[in-house]
């Protein structure tokens, strides 16, 4: 595309948007084959709440990684994505792999990936891993609670 250095891509600029869009389509590859056309092509948020959640939050994350990296907007966006992935038929790797796709998206759209981006993507990945682990843990806790309740019934 362009060789322009992206050390300071303006958030909301067309390059950022292009990177984010590319990121969205790369990240769809984590999903099972049959689901992909729907997730990536259908734009309507109600017909496709998953696809639209993914798109919306990836755009937020792209803006932050390329821009200010504000914790306050990174954390909820990442949580929304990982929370959604954590209940699907995705392996743990697939559930957080989308973070690394950003590197590819930047390289493809901007030519190079500056050092600062590498560091940010790495820390994003770590955050995603721990958030994923938290979500899974929560699911198991919730499951345990239901099992415990069932056992209580049986012994009463």
């Amino acid at each position, binding site marked *: 595309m362009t060789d322009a250095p992206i050390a300071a891509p303006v958030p909301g600029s067309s390059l950022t948007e292009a990177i984010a869009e590319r990121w969205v389509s790369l990240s769809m*590859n984590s*999903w099972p084959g049959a689901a992909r056309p729907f997730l990536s092509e259908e734009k309507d948020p109600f017909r496709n*709440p998953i696809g639209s959640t993914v798109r919306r939050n990836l755009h937020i994350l792209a803006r932050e990684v390329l821009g200010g990296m504000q914790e306050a907007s990174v954390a909820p966006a990442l949580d929304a994505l990982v929370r959604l992935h954590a209940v699907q038929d995705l392996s743990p790797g697939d559930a957080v792999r989308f973070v690394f796709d950003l590197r590819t998206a930047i390289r493809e759209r901007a030519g190079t990936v500056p050092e600062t981006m590498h560091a940010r993507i790495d820390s994003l990945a770590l955050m995603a891993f721990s958030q994923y682990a938290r979500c899974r843990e929560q699911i198991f806790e919730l499951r345990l609670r239901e099992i415990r309740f069932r056992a209580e019934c049986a012994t009463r």
Partner: protein
Amino acid sequence: MPGTLVQIESKPPRGDWTDPHVEFRKGSICYSAAPKNLEYLGLPNPRVWQPLDADWKLPPDWKRILLEGMKDRLKKYRSFRLFMEICVRCGACADKCHFYLGSADPKNMPVMRAELMRSVYRRYFTLTGRLFGALAGARELTEDVVKEWFYYFYQCTECRRCSVFCPYGIDTAEITMMGRELLNLIGCNTNWILEPAANCFRMGNHLGIQPHGFKDSIDFAAEEASEITGLKIEVPIQRKGAEVLFVMPSADYFASPHYYTLLGYLMLFHEIGLDYTVSAYASEGGNFGLFSSHEMMKRLNAKIYEEARRLGVKWILGGECGHMWRVLHQYMDTMNGPADFLEVPVSPMTGTVFENTRSTKMVHICEFTADLIHHGRLRLDPSRNDHWNVTYHDSCNPARGMGLLEEPRYILNSVSRHFHEMPENTIREQTFCCGSGAGLGTDENLEMRLRGGFPRANAVKYVKEKYGVNLLTCICAIDKATLPTLLEYWVPGVEVAGVHELLGNALVMTGEKERTADLRGEPFAPARESEALHA
């Protein structure tokens, strides 16, 4: 480059639905039914197996059994035959299913779920399917198809949302019911459905509580209600000659937060002096037969009329439960009626004749209570619910199998002052299912439930953020059992309660002691003095 280090699973980019292969994973399936439950109910092919096994140990002639079962049902149900034949695949229903919306799995589109069965129907029961095979959309019935059926028919909560939008009213729930009946013929069933069914058949309720346990639970609740109110509240069990038999889902006296709803009922009955009784024999209004076969539904339902006849009551009152009311409203009278030994229900307090129940003689508690409130028979202090910002979740069955929409809202608006609706197209007849109905509400299936509950949670999140809603009310035992888990994951900070729990909070009883806390023991909101006490 780390991106390439992550193993890339490559699957075909554009799946063709005719491939029946499904991958069973823990977390998104229900486990098989234990042989003892099948044996107790006299169902075919009891054995030890799991959906995760490669060999399902089907009977040798499983294919013949399935096809004959299908033929039989095509003859007996116009709905089945019609729904197999008239779908135009317009796609209006496609994005109406919460499981599709929450999983993006295209086979969860209602039309596709039905097509799994239709393709087999075409292959074996239509001329074009037999002649042109795949070109006519026909598929061979193979063991993989059986597994696919199992996966997707136990991934439909029979909520009927799809049917609302279909131009022909094609009800995928009906097709799922047929699919499950067929799977039952070859012993492919789930324990979460058949164990409650077996319990209910033997003991009288899903949880398998024996009569003395039933009495203990009821007495315990009566004592607690007495303590809260300072009155002497008693619950007669199997008392002959009472006017009304009260039937509720067993979760009401055994699970939480259902239990607070039970306290609400008991306080209401005491306050109005209702001449009623409950029964350990008919200690379950819910009916997991609905989730396995019409025959099982009938077998489990029979005890309600039988008990009403034995006790010599005049009519029957039913508690808060969703699928229980689907059966009571649309099936009971046809299956086990006519109830000519009962009388047309009349409210002893208001004299209202419940004309709409003239034949079945069973009244929904929300109809009964709404009538009491409308006639000014209850003293209510809605400020006692001021600590709750309330929304109401229409449960699928009362909404789409009955149309019970306004009665609970009328009650809620009378007992609370902070009631907020969720977005228009997620309530009433368009309500989103909790994702755990129709026998899917088990812990081993939790991931799937969380997917199915996503659209509902989305709407709850909206009212939470907009109005600060912190309580979701509903009139369904399955909702009350499963939504707390779902909301904790998707929308933490919103609790779940029955409508009659809030009624119990607001009900000002004659001679009650001063109450400072609600039925859960949480203190009422302060600053009540400023507002004139309603009572």
